[in-house]
């Protein structure tokens, strides 16, 4: 037992290191690149970094920052006013910063680009028709126009644009990813895109100037909280103004190449800017792996420990009453039927994001196997054993300690083992709500379509599952006499 305690304390201790900066990103390429640039730059200045990339959307990222589960992530001014503050009337950086300060949040200086919607035309059409601004489109109703469905329908997209510029274009809908191909092959003259898309560079699209200032500003900058280490904030400030639209397009374009990792894109940028002298791309692999594994173990071990205490505890309290046991199993079974992602999402409004909701969700999932095996094992104990215990004058506690638990132990351990394996698998999904762990590289890999990253999470997770099996065989060896063990000898 002391060995187990030692192991647990090592796990906890390793994570407690206070001064680490948790750098996060949302789950799209540009955000990954910006987060990775920040992470590598901080590391180059000797600051410990923890990567928490691939958070599932603005709401979760903001919640994570709010709860200090993360320290910094790249955000856009338009998103801040529209989604986070819900005050679209704020336009100047000063106003936005003042509003953020009320929530103890800090927006660092903008990086230099504006990732907003833009109207693009092919170079050929632009030159032929003399198009330079969106106003120039008036009177060119013969142009073939297709917009992504989302842009076509949202009020701050095409409908508003048409009214502001009084355009008479006839417009079709198209998949965002197909629009560039259609433009390249000359089937389309005009489309809408994000102003920093890498494809703009590749296809040589001309972005028309928003001369009436219709589109809101989406200036990119690092969003952090007011307790970020001063030296970290200073380091990140050196990035301000260094990435204009064209530069961001180039970085995004480079990341489109499946043979180039985000880390490489970031590290190349930092070297080009003279901010980092050595190639930093591959160094973080092992520390990241260890940290992810450690965090993964912490998530599952905490959840499992709680579930063992609760599941076995309640099982011991209710097993004598048929109805109560059934009700308990029914409710914990119900938990099991909620899809993991849904359960994790349900936790956010209740307890925010980060490790806490993940641990609670994993805890809820672990109860059923543990409680069921405990109750079933208790019911399976022959009445004679209990009669003899009673006749010896055992108290309830003595009966539990000397008779019931030892007899039920092999089944209880089997239940805990099942729960542990479920936990390890499910915990990989917890990365979606910022809990970190081995799900981090998996989620990132899925978002970037990078199978190497996916394997960096999946392989260790599988190894962890096997180690867990071995660990519980050992636990059984400690707690159960040989002829009552369920494991095969020699395993």
């Amino acid at each position: 037992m002391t060995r187990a305690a030692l192991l647990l304390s090592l796990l906890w201790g390793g994570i407690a290191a206070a001064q680490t900066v948790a750098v996060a990103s949302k789950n799209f390429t540009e955000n990954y690149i910006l987060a990775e640039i920040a992470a590598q730059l901080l590391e180059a200045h000797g600051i410990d970094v923890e990567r928490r990339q691939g958070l599932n959307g603005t709401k979760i990222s903001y919640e994570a920052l709010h709860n200090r589960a993360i320290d910094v992530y790249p955000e856009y001014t338009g998103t801040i006013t529209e989604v986070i503050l819900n005050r679209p009337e704020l336009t100047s950086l000063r106003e936005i910063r003042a509003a953020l300060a009320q929530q103890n949040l800090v927006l660092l200086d903008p990086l230099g680009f504006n990732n907003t919607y833009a109207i693009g035309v092919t170079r050929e059409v632009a030159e032929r028709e003399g198009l330079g601004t969106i106003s120039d489109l008036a009177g060119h109703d013969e142009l073939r126009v297709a917009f992504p469905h989302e842009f076509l329908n949202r009020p701050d997209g095409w409908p508003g644009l048409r009214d502001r510029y009084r355009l008479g274009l006839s417009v079709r809908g198209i998949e965002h990813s197909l629009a560039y191909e259609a433009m390249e092959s000359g089937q389309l003259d005009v489309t809408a895109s994000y102003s920093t898309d890498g494809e703009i560079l590749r296809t040589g699209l001309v972005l028309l100037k928003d001369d009436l200032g219709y589109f809101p500003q989406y200036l990119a900058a690092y969003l952090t909280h007011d307790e970020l280490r001063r030296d970290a904030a200073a380091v990140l400030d050196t990035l301000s103004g260094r990435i204009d639209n064209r530069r961001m397009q180039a970085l995004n374009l480079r990341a489109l190449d499946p043979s180039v990792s985000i880390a490489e894109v970031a590290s190349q940028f930092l070297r080009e800017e003279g901010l980092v002298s050595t190639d930093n791309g591959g160094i973080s692999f092992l520390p990241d792996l260890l940290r992810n594994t450690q965090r993964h173990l912490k998530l599952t071990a905490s959840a499992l420990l709680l579930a063992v205490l609760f599941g076995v505890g309640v099982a011991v309290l209710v097993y004598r009453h048929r109805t109560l046991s059934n009700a308990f199993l029914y409710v914990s079974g119900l938990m099991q039927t909620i899809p993991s992602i849904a359960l994790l999402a349900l936790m956010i409004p209740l307890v925010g994001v980060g490790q806490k909701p993940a641990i609670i969700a994993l805890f809820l999932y672990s109860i059923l196997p543990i409680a069921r095996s405990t109750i079933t094992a208790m019911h399976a104990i022959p009445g004679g054993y209990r009669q003899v215990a009673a006749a010896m004058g055992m108290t309830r506690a003595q009966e539990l300690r000397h008779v019931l638990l030892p007899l039920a132990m092999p089944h209880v351990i089997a239940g805990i083992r099942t729960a542990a394996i479920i936990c390890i698998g499910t915990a990989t999904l917890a990365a979606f709500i910022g809990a970190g762990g081995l799900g981090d590289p998996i989620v990132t890999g899925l978002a970037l379509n990078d199978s190497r990253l996916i394997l960096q999470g999946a392989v260790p997770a599988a190894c962890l599952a096997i180690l867990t099996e071995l660990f519980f065989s050992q636990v059984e060896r400690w707690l159960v006499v040989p002829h009552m063990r369920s494991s095969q000898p020699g395993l």
Partner: protein
Amino acid sequence: MTENTLQQAPSAAEFRNVTLRRGTVTALDDLTLTLPGRKTTAVLGASGSGKSTLIQLTIGLLRPDRGTVSTLGAAVDYDKLRPLRKRIGYAIQDICLYPHLDIRDNILLPARLDGRDEQECAARLDELLTLMQLPEDVLPRWPHELSGGQQQRAGLCRAMILRPELLLLDEPFSGLDTMTRSGIHDQFLQLQDAEPVSSILVTHDPQEAINLADFIVVIREGRVQQHGPVDDVVSNPVNEYVDHLCTGLTGIAR
């Protein structure tokens, strides 16, 4: 028709107008009976006759629907059963030993629960092993590694470890073959000679009752058929049922 009271106080157990139903079945029907102290009484009957019920009432595992039960001279106090149970040794058929404890731990379990001194326990253990003719090398073994006879003898050792005032045996020998059984019978008699203690032995085997007991109670369908010294019951059966049970059995062992 029956002689329900015998001399000698304090009695091992006393039942007054006890009625007990289990489900819709009446296990004991207005039963009045006194079992003498410092003697061995065999409760003899077919399965379902209510004989095991009698033992479970004695130790408070069951509570009568009507009537009173007194054990070792005092009415059973159902709110404070533990002090009483610590004065009683209890052994049942088959599964009396715990599979997760070795033989030593099984036998010593009651003593440890009671917080007895280890040295005192070890001395008592040696004494019992000798009486029951169990070799010392069974102590570190698991129950399933022992023969049925050895298991039952270990069960008896455990029942006797705290020097109980009353020994309750619920068919402890019925799972054994004839040869083994007669061996254990001998050891049980030696035990009784060495440490005379009130005993109640439930059995469906008339020969066993005759071999081991001073008194016999014959029970059928929750009612006492006959109660008396072994010789009396065997030689003067009061009805056909008792007569039928005892036919062909002779040889008073003591």
